[in-house]
């Protein structure tokens, strides 16, 4: 007779294999990091540029360039570009991140030869037509108006501004910033940032010698741009704290976001802090979820995270709760943090978190794209694969005393910024 109360045997994840990229150089010195794996005949190629020349009076320069870079070049109109890329079934994405901007191409290998020259034109000879800029400004302003009606967006924006000020991480974007955007600003930024010396290429998928030679023949030569630029570097001294209420009288839910600037991936405590974060709000069974969603039913979801950037990092807790229980939810969050600081995490819970995090790491290496993403994370933090070894070791061995010490070191709610968009 089957005993359904008997838990089946299980094993802790022991072996996690990372595929390290092959490092090559194009003729002009651009580094190409390739993970050549996978069963499908497809490839993802990312051109990544460090963000540079931060000018707080023009906070949209880099974002504008990232949005519009594929909207017209010396030889192709925005429509030509879109037609060609779509015709070959390829996907072209431009992305603006905290520290880097990227242009990503996803394509089936059979169309690579046809689409790479389009990409070259975008990266080397984009012109940012006035007409396209005007449409961008108009539509982005409209989209911002909609976002400004969302409590979650307001909380996020105000939180970032509170802890990062007018840096690229926290700039408080107003509709007027869009109006101030000029074609010349975009061209200036584009010429400074989108150049071989500021570019690295990350490839994942099927990518053999022939494909590399093709890439080299297009991007390894005849790409001349020696404009100077200064990489963004931010330092933050003052520590803002306290509550910030953005009143939304008709809100039926309030968005809460609280936290503080914190350590990043390069800090020796970072892996251990992630374990602590996982216990608190990093997974479905976390204490915040168990209390505020599963026990109290105040919210559809609550979570916390530690985020690593180039020169800094931050920790935050975010949720949207019924407006009438906002105060109570804030108290419960404080309570959960207090418990972490004063009581040891029980061994059974810590074991669960260890296994969950190891399983999650294993699962995050699903395909060749995810292996490339893992590499990018450490590469842009100036780290190597020893980081992951240490991470896995930390997850396996960290003890409850250590977690308690970390909670006291990093989770001082008196130092937190607490943003509420809605009602309290």
């Amino acid at each position, binding site marked *: 007779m089957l005993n359904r109360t008997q838990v089946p045997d*299980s094993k802790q994840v022991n072996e996690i294999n990372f595929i390290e990229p092959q490092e090559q150089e194009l003729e002009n010195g651009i580094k190409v990091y390739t993970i050549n794996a996978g069963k*499908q005949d497809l490839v993802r190629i990312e051109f990544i540029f460090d963000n540079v020349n931060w000018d707080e009076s023009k906070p949209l320069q880099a974002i504008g360039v990232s949005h519009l870079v594929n909207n017209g070049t010396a030889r192709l109109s925005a429509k030509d570009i879109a037609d060609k890329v779509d015709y070959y*079934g390829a996907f072209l994405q431009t992305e603006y991140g905290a520290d880097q901007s990227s242009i990503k191409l996803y394509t089936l290998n059979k169309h690579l030869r046809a689409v790479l020259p389009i990409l070259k034109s975008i990266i080397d000879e984009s012109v940012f037509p006035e007409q396209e800029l005007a449409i961008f400004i108009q*539509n982005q302003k409209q989209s911002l108006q909609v976002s400004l009606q969302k409590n979650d967006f307001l909380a996020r924006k105000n939180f970032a501004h509170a802890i990062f000020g007018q840096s690229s991480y926290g700039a408080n974007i107003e509709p007027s910033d869009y109006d101030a955007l000029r074609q010349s600003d975009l061209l200036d930024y584009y010429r400074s940032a989108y150049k071989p010396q500021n570019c690295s290429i990350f490839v994942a998928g099927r990518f053999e010698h022939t494909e590399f030679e093709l890439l080299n023949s297009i991007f390894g030569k005849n790409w001349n741009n020696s404009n100077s630029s200064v990489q963004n570097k931010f330092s933050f001294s003052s520590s803002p704290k306290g509550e910030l209420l953005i009143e939304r009288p008709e809100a039926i839910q309030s968005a809460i976001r609280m936290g503080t600037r914190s350590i990043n991936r390069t800090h020796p405590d970072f892996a251990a802090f992630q374990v602590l974060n996982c216990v608190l709000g990093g*997974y479905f069974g976390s204490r915040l979820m168990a209390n505020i969603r599963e026990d109290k*039913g105040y919210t559809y979801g609550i979570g916390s995270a530690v985020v690593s950037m180039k020169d800094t990092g931050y920790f935050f807790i975010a949720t949207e709760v019924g407006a009438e229980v906002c105060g109570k939810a804030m108290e419960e969050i404080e309570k959960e943090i207090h418990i972490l600081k004063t009581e040891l995490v029980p061994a059974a819970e810590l074991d669960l978190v260890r296994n*969950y995090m190891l399983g999650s790491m294993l699962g995050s290496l699903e395909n060749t794209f995810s292996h490339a993403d893992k590499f990018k994370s450490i590469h842009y933090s100036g780290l190597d694969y020893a980081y992951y070894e240490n991470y896995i070791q930390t997850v396996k061995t960290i003890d409850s005393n250590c977690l308690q010490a970390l909670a006291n070191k990093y989770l001082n709610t008196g130092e937190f910024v607490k943003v509420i968009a809605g009602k309290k």
Partner: protein
Amino acid sequence: MVDFNRFTLANGLRVLVHEDDTTPMAVLNILYDVGARDEEADKTGFAHLFEHLMFGGSVNIPSYDEPLQRVGGENNAFTSNDITNYYITLPAVNLETAFWLESDRMLSLAFSEKSLETQRNVVCEEFKQRYLNQPYGDVWLKLRPLAYKKHPYQWATIGQDLKQIEDAKMEDVKAFFKKHYNPQNAIMVVGGNVKTQDVKALAEKWFAPIAPGEKYLRNLPQEPLQQESRQETVYAKVPLNAIYMAFKMPDRKNPDYQCFDLISDVLSQGQSSRLYNSLLKEQQLFSEIHAYITSSIDEGLFVVEGKLVEGVKMEQAEAAIWKELKKLKEHQVSTDELTKVKNKSESIMVFAEMSLLDKAMNLAYYELLGDAGLLNNEIDRYLAVTAEQMQQAARNTFVKEQCSTLYYLIAKDA
């Protein structure tokens, strides 16, 4: 190509296995053939609320999530108007834990009052977060009843209102479980670093003892042919005027389905698409414009929606959409344009094979449609679509008498 093996247990549970040794992970996906369309009109939102209750402990296992996380696994689920789908990903070495958990909740839930009370609250907060506390969040709560008058697609999966969720009773929960959650109404897909013979043994061990239950025979009210143009206007505190147009289109199994999908791509897939170029870029009437299909198993909707540029008149914006739809009726799409949307479909299908979970979910869904093998020749059905067929489909579909239009307008402060 997504290979699979298939077998059926004596109690009627259909099982598919997709072996993929490139990953150390496994997926266990169970699709229950029940969605919001199977709800009673005074108990809407129930299939989705029920999905939440499936995590509230089962007859022999008090906590669902905890033992799964303990072996390094994760899970989630979603409910649509047609189906309820549950999935687990975990290290393949711990696959049996997934069988243990999923089989116990198919056997019977714990039916805890505490869980019901909490999940009623959680779902009400979800309702607020996604539908009520967002600009334009309630569009589908308005558009569905405008487009469907008889068929249960007239309500959204979240339900018609908060009240019906708040009123859910334990006896309803039990009845719903009995009716829909049994082996005959489920399709299980196990994928990843697994072997078919092991999956077979585990399925026999954990699922075979579950009683087959009664087969649910679906008999839904049919939607009568729409013969009048329908309009509704909503005023709300939103920053921009918006329009939503919903046309009736064939069901998912209809041979024309792929043709409609490609029409929506011609209109709206990527920056080369017609609506984007004509209405957003050239005429600058819209700051956002999209066309898409609902892909529902019964008669579906072909939707065009857009947010108007400030100062643009609604009549002008609406007429411009109609003009684009008329073009599809009057002229065949060019060979290049047709090749383009077919190439894109092919790409999307190949890229979808990068994700183990997507593969497992797709196998389950195609099996529900009649045969998981359909997944592997789906692309051929796209490639076979002709320009004539698209023109004919446009002619049959884009007519005022089959259109439901929702004007979502800025409320002027009274």
